[in-house]
């Protein structure tokens, strides 16, 4: 069976699981919403300041959400030793990892697209004129988060205190994603709106390098 087909099957399984329970999506949505509200309390930004801090706030919220949300991705498989069953399947291990990466990408993107209008209204930021380009930035930034987060979730699932461990492993490594995504978003929300290509290239480089690394290391990550 090809990697793509295996990934599609795992993806379908993850999506089915999530849409039956909706646990991850609801908790993450509420969490990000809370961060957005708390930020307003703690900094009380004027409309000028929201323009300046908005992109950073948005991506910090996404990164924190990701580092919490991606934890069950592999931890869930350990409860009934289902990872063992998955690995018994005669498929490339990368198919399993890729399926999970794509599922997490879908969950994160859905959360982001639902929260973007809320953010735009609460902080009075015009996202509609740049929506197309913003989606490209969201897609590339979130792909980096999903690839790294899913691989690290396979790492933290095998350790003690995994819920606490995942953010500690993930956040320093995601430094380039955070900076590049914030810079891209700030460029798009600025006046005049521009897509900062050098930052977009950083995101692409990160995605390519980490996707390649997770491909090379997936045997090691999924081993028992």
């Amino acid at each position, binding site marked *: 069976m090809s990697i793509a087909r295996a990934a599609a099957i795992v993806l379908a399984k993850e999506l089915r699981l999530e849409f039956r329970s909706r646990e991850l999506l609801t908790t993450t949505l509420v969490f990000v919403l809370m961060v957005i509200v708390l930020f307003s309390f703690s900094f009380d930004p004027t409309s000028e300041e929201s323009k300046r801090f908005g992109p950073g706030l948005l991506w910090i919220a996404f990164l924190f959400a990701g580092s919490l949300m991606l934890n069950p991705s592999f931890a869930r498989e350990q409860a009934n030793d289902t990872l063992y069953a998955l690995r018994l399947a005669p498929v490339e291990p990368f198919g399993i990892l890729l399926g999970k990466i794509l599922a997490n990408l879908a969950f994160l993107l859905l959360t982001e697209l639902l929260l973007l209008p809320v953010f735009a209204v609460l902080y009075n930021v015009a996202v509609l004129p740049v929506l197309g380009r913003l989606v490209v930035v969201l897609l590339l930034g979130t792909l980096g988060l999903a690839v*790294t987060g899913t*691989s*690290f979730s396979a*790492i*933290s699932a*095998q*350790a*003690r*205190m995994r819920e606490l*461990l995942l953010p*500690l*492993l993930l956040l*320093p*490594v995601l*430094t*380039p994603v955070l*900076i*590049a995504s914030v*810079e891209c978003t700030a460029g798009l929300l600025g006046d005049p709106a521009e897509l900062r290509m*050098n*930052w977009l290239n*950083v995101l692409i*480089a*990160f995605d390519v*390098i*980490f996707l390649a*690394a997770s491909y090379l*290391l997936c045997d*090691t*990550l999924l*081993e028992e």
Partner: protein
Amino acid sequence: MNSAEKRDRAVTLAVAVLVMIAGYAALFVAPEERTMRAIQRIFYFHVPSAWTAFTAFFIVFICNIVYLVRRELKWDWLGVSAAEVGLAFCTAVLVTGPIWAKPVWGIWWTWDARLTSTFVLWLMYVSYLLLRTLLPDPEKRARISAAFGIFAFLDVPLVYFSIWLWRTQHPQPVIGGGGSLDPTMWKVLMTCWAALLGVMILMVRQRYRLEQLRHEAEELAHAAEARASASGGELA
């Protein structure tokens, strides 16, 4: 005393002498910097510490790869030893930097490209060591931390580049970059680096032996446990 012990003593003595020479050179041989005066001499400890930390982290990366290919625990021991010693040197860099910066820049810390990326590097290796403490099984610890170590090391160029790009858009603090270094200063700097590399190698070796002994102790404890449960079974 056998020949290995003799050789160890000789190496330790040589490094000790080198450290004394380096200390003397940094304090008395290197010429006084015109504007910064004596405080500039911390540079002979600060910069070589940074280079030594990077060398150690590179050793960690190599050990991680070799472990995953060969699956021999000794590469994991060497990796964790280099990571701990590298982190100690990286901490020295982050501590000596502000000591120098306060009188020269007037502030302890600034979010400059080099400072920030060294700080992120430090955080990544702290989480590498933290991850290891949360994995009790030696084989699993070696495998999982090797994978994380490779991810982290691949991230280093991206972290440096992105932070550099991020900072160049903002006002640059006055860093001593650019101008050429006095030849004597250069020689002193290299002597200091050689000395610190020697210290690093000695420390990594000691730490490696400690890891080896810990492993042996663990094995013995397991064997004793197995024997106790076996004889307990006979009694019942």
